[in-house]
């Protein structure tokens, strides 16, 4: 059975079960919270998706998010009249630079992606503190035009698809198109599937690495601005903390092979949706947020164990 169907089935079962136990779960308000929870994860997951396809991993996205969020927040503080699209562009640019640093460490210093991004996870977080001098960006500095992106959107039948989610879905669509029709996108699959063979065929491993990690960084930067819009503040310490786990969980559930070479955007999207449903289900059922981390960890473990069993069966064939 295809991974997308499994994810969809799990979502359906979850919704049904939780809906039976607590009918409020299937009402517009709770669907609204599910939809509001998604955009950040989707944007971050698309970046991680690219990296995972090359066979790498980026642990530092939460710190990049925080850095970009603080950076743009400070910019808005200094230039209150800054147009919103420009604020987004700045966030993306900041993320792009940090993602490029990750790629440079991996390509030029030949670090294992895990080690490089564990290092930058710490380094970028520290720089975020340096940038903000420890202060958080408050709602007062954020223009209404930005924060309203989370509250306003396209409404239908009592359910609102926020502008943030529209952005998220737009990013997902663009990622899907890039992976399907971009020559550089196809190169990511080739590199992740068989790096040595790709090299022999003249596909540049370095280029693929730069593309994947820089894009991942840029999307994390975008997510930083979206974070400010969604929550109305950015704290240099807590913004994006542990997000890497959520996002890797989403990608893993979506069926992307964490050793590289395969994965679909639809799968990853459904992974985000499933996590979102779990998250809202926890709060609807009155289980407090303290269970969240455990839930993510379990979901990641389940996803990789299923993959492990699968590839073992594959080898046995």
């Amino acid at each position, binding site marked *: 059975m295809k991974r997308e169907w499994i994810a969809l089935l799990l979502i359906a079962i979850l919704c049904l079960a939780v809906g039976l136990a607590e009918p409020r779960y299937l009402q517009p308000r709770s669907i609204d919270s599910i939809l509001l929870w998604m955009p950040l994860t989707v944007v971050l997951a698309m970046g991680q998706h690219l990296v995972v396809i090359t066979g790498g991993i980026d642990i530092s996205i939460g710190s990049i998010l925080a850095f970009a969020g603080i950076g743009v927040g400070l910019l808005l503080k200094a230039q209150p009249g800054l147009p919103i699209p420009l604020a987004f562009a700045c966030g993306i640019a900041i993320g792009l630079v940090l993602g490029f640093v990750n790629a440079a460490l991996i390509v030029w210093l030949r670090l294992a992606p895990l080690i490089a991004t564990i290092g930058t996870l710490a380094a970028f977080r520290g720089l975020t503190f340096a940038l903000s001098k420890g202060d958080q960006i408050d709602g007062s500095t954020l223009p209404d035009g930005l924060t309203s992106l989370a509250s306003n959107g396209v409404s239908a039948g009592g359910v609102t698809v926020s502008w943030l989610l529209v952005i998220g879905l737009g990013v997902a669509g663009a990622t899907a198109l890039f992976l399907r029709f971009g*020559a550089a996108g196809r190169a990511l699959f080739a590199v992740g599937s*068989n790096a040595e063979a*790709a090299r022999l065929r003249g596909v540049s491993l370095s280029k693929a690495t730069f593309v994947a990690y820089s894009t991942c960084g840029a999307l994390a930067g975008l997510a930083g601005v979206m974070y400010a819009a969604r929550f109305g503040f950015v704290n240099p310490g807590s913004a994006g903390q542990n997000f890497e786990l959520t996002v890797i969980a989403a990608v893993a559930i979506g069926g992307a092979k964490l050793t590289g070479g395969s994965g679909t955007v639809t799968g990853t999207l459904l992974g985000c949706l499933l996590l979102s449903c779990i998250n809202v289900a926890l709060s609807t059922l009155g289980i407090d947020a303290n269970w969240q981390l455990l839930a993510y960890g379990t979901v990641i473990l389940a996803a990789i164990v299923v993959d492990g069993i699968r590839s073992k069966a594959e080898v046995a064939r």
Partner: protein
Amino acid sequence: MEVKGLSVTFGGVDVVSKVDLVLEPGEIHAVVGENGAGKSSLGKAIAGVYQPSAGTIAVGGSTVRLRNPADGLAHGIALIHQEPMTFADLSVAENVFVGHVPKRRGLVDWKQLYQRSKQLFADLGISIDVRQSAAHLSVAQQQFIELASALSHDSQVWIFDETTAPLTPKETSELFSIFRRLRDRGCAVMFVTHHLQEVFEVADRITVLRDGVKVAERLVAETNPGEVVQLMVGRDLDASGPITESANAEPILEVNSLTGPGFSEVSLTVHRGEIFGLAGLVGSGRTELARALAGVVRPTSGEILLSSTAKRFSSVHAAIEAGVAMVPEDRRRHGLFMSQSIQFNATMARLSELSRHGWLDHRKLEEVTVASGSDLRLAYRSTSQPVESLSGGNQQKVVLGRWLMTEPRVLILDEPTRGVDVGAKAEVHRVIRQLAEQGTAILVISSDLPEVLSLSTRVGVMRQGRLVATLDRGSATEESIMAAATGEGSA
């Protein structure tokens, strides 16, 4: 396409030395030689995989410098590997076009991708579903992908590196018809092999390499297999035979209708002091059989007897305990801990026995390593030297030494002299014969037929997982072995 004075150097040793070669369009040019003669390295240097240390490569009259295989492709030179490089996660069509996907307005044009790859396979006379995933293709099908890929680059020079070794006879003849098709299109085909039968079947011209040097070039029509063999070997084939005759010796290893992954219903007996050669094509199940005998994988049915006692090995360790040792085929992958010291490598299989209650006894480890080194005439500076700094032949001696330390009753050697220089090869042969004299039962797997013939008391031949023939010294010849291995009548 013309090569002048080409040399390839590894670790200070010329594996290819000042070779001149002309590949004419519309000609199939076979490059033959024994294992280690440098024929594969020559092909790889021409395709840009290896950088030549001297000499020039000219395509269409102008000298080119190939920094990598992609450069080679750009100049119309394609290399088809023995073990093809496939992208298991991608479709067959995309595999063909990795690195140069067809595009329209900057976007990947999937329609054209499928159409063109379908056309390429049709040109090659191959039927295959181009949309299927490449994950479960046979080796031959994977080679066809590389062929189609080379064809898509409109390559003019095609180098086939021992491509027939993993193929069945039927697949081989399919491949040869592709050779001819390419020749008729005006391409230059270079075919690296050591199967003379194949050379005389398909090639127009032969170049013979020995120890990295070109020793002769002949038109196929003007020579015969006997002459080529002599040129390849450079000496008479009749080397010193084994001393011990096996007829009355007691059986040490008995295998009865053993079946497992990659082999089935194999029965054979190796006696005390006997050297049993196991020949067959690559992929015929020889290595798989050896792995089962040494406890690496478990057979599914059948039995293994050691000195008439049935044994079932749950692990390699159990096999070692019972007195079975195997020197694996792929030294770098399965044999050695490359970055570690000679002592580390040599003593690894006997570490528990060479220590006291789990504590290493460095003096003892040192002693046995030095003793083993001098037994095998190992050339080294110090036992703490990492094995990656040794030559191939000396590395093989370290692995051999490790297994001799287990004092095996049955020693299995899988391609013991692959990639080993002539001197070390003779040394390894000497050790094998000496062990047999001391009463060890020895099973030698080798694709090097002269080696099999000169070492073995008896030769078993495997084909498609089965032991199809057992020849004694009198009846074993290169021809009879190849006939059994390919399942075709003697050429």
